């Protein structure tokens, strides 16, 4: 390194006075660091979620769909099952806002009723998945070892059976109704959830705070429900959000096979499949349910993705 001949700091050396070189006490320092208010993990995630505009839009759409599915059929003077054979296949007009179908039923009411059924199917299937998955996965993860091995093998074998085939078989045998459809959809749907719970619990159970709690004599139940599950909540919620649209989709597919909800009840899927035959003549019969199902799927998926990013910032790309 070349040596420069400036053995004295030269910056504005001229104007410096001895006063400048008086030591300052700690409390005199201007740059006391103001620590950012520390947020709880959940608050923090919520803040991140709220700043994600796309996810919030998804949430709003989800809320709107749910609200309309609830009140939509009420704000029209029609009901979803009365036929009006004088007014079949009418395009949207001031009386029938979404037009009518081949039996003259009001499409506006039927669309929102269909949304209601689709949502019920989706939510119920997802919730049952969560319940079974949390219990099964919780046991696998918590006890580990032999128990885990056997239960996991069982789950793996079940999982490798193509679930839609089983669902179809079940519905062929037991006539489709809301209940059997939901049950048939959950027959293998819970496995994925149980694996997620298992993974989380396995990771969490060796953390210090769990060991500490155990060393103080906390029982298995308390550990599982007080310490482990609440901390595994993030991934559970994300999986739940993303499995709702899956169930809605599967129901739509079953409707197409004639194994969805049966007439006169409608789901979005069954409305689309019954519109398929003549939809080029009566496009509105497909348009509204198709639009709504796509919008719902979109909203759930976008919100689910946003939720995942918010709960696990490490994964965010």
């Amino acid at each position, binding site marked *: 390194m070349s040596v420069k001949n400036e053995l*004295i*700091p030269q910056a504005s050396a001229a104007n*410096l006075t001895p006063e400048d*070189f008086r030591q300052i006490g700690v409390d005199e*320092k201007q740059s006391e660091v103001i620590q950012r208010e520390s947020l709880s993990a959940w608050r923090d995630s919520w803040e991140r979620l709220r700043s994600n505009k796309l996810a919030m839009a998804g949430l709003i759409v989800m809320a709107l769909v749910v609200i309309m599915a609830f009140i939509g059929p009420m704000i029209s003077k029609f009901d979803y099952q009365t036929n009006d054979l004088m007014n079949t296949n009418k395009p949207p007009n001031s009386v029938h806002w979404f037009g009518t179908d081949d039996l003259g039923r009001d499409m506006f009411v039927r669309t929102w009723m269909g949304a209601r059924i689709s949502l019920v199917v989706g939510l119920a299937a997802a919730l049952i998945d969560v319940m079974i998955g949390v219990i099964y996965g919780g046991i696998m993860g918590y006890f580990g070892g032999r128990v885990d091995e056997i239960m996991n093998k069982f789950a793996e074998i079940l999982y490798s059976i193509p679930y839609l085939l089983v669902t179809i078989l079940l519905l062929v045998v037991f006539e489709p109704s809301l209940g059997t459809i939901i049950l048939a959809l959950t027959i293998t749907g819970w496995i994925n959830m149980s694996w997620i719970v298992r993974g989380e619990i396995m990771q969490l159970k060796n953390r210090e705070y769990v060991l500490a709690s155990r060393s103080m004599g906390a029982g298995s139940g308390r550990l599982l429900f007080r310490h482990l599950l609440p901390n595994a909540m993030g991934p559970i919620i994300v999986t739940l959000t993303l499995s709702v649209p899956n169930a809605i989709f599967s129901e739509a597919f079953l409707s197409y096979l004639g194994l969805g909800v049966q007439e006169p009840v409608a789901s979005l899927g069954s409305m689309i499949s019954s519109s398929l035959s003549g939809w080029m003549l009566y496009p509105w019969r497909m348009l509204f349910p198709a639009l709504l199902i796509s919008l719902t799927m979109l909203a759930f998926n976008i919100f689910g993705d946003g939720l995942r990013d918010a709960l696990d910032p490490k994964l965010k790309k």
Partner: protein
Amino acid sequence: MESILEVKDLHVSFSVRGGEVKAVRGVNFTVGKGETVAIVGESGSGKSVTAQTIMRLIPSPPSKIKQGQVIFNGEDLLSKTNKQMEAIRGKDIGMIFQDPMTSLNPTIKVGKQITEGLIKHQNLSFAEAKTRGVEMLKLVGIKNAEARFNQYPHEFSGGMRQRVMIAIALACRPSLLIADEPTTALDVTIQAQIINVMKDMQERFGTSIIMITHDLGVVAGMADRVIVMYAGEVVETGTSMEIFKNPQHPYTRGLLRSLPRIDQRKDEPLVPIIGTPPDLIKPPVGCPFAARCDHAMKVCERIDPDPTHLSDTHMSRCWLQHPMAQEVQSS
């Protein structure tokens, strides 16, 4: 000593959501032929950014080299095209990274990862490259090198992988090796082995080494000269002896005091440096260390001090070196 690398007034910034992080702010230093220079500082001091800028490995965007020069063998690396840089990387400058567990491609055999550079830079056939690669593996202390050559990274332990990294970085006998925290992710016993391998290789090939670390223990065992960085600036440089025996900058002293020593008495406390480094989106006008400094004076908050050269090799950027400070303190 003839210098191989000269970094002149280097400024590097990152654009982030809240503005521009000025990560490196006017860094100057040189590295001589066959010399080992350690760059020391805590995370965020700009040491890694400096190292990656020399290699032009820093992703842009978000980073931007604002000004400065990196003169390597008489040529400014910052004005080279990407193509020209590719011919220099791996051939004239090698680099090893912090985490040997993630620095090797998990799906490619170790041997192939070593020979890649050889084949590109020295136009060797695969067979020739393989001979050289196996030889390199032997040199860095990997037993059974022929068999290991055909194994995948996951079949190596952390320490062994770091040896492989060294073999990769030195395969083409570069004149400069940049080691970015090469021992941080390793066990203490393995750290020493890796340091020894590096020293050994340096003796064999006469490579200059820039060693980035926050571990002063590593520095003491290896470096000829030390550069202490804080908040994107070089605050003190000197020979290892000068830095360890006669540290001048309060930050350097703080670093040394927070380091446990074998001869330390039991009741002698370790002194941590209180507080956190400044936010480099809005770096302070004065000395960046002033807020955490026990000796902070009024001037420190107003004006960032210039370098004071205490000897041919020793430089400190601190107002305490100003004659007026010494007068005031002693009175």
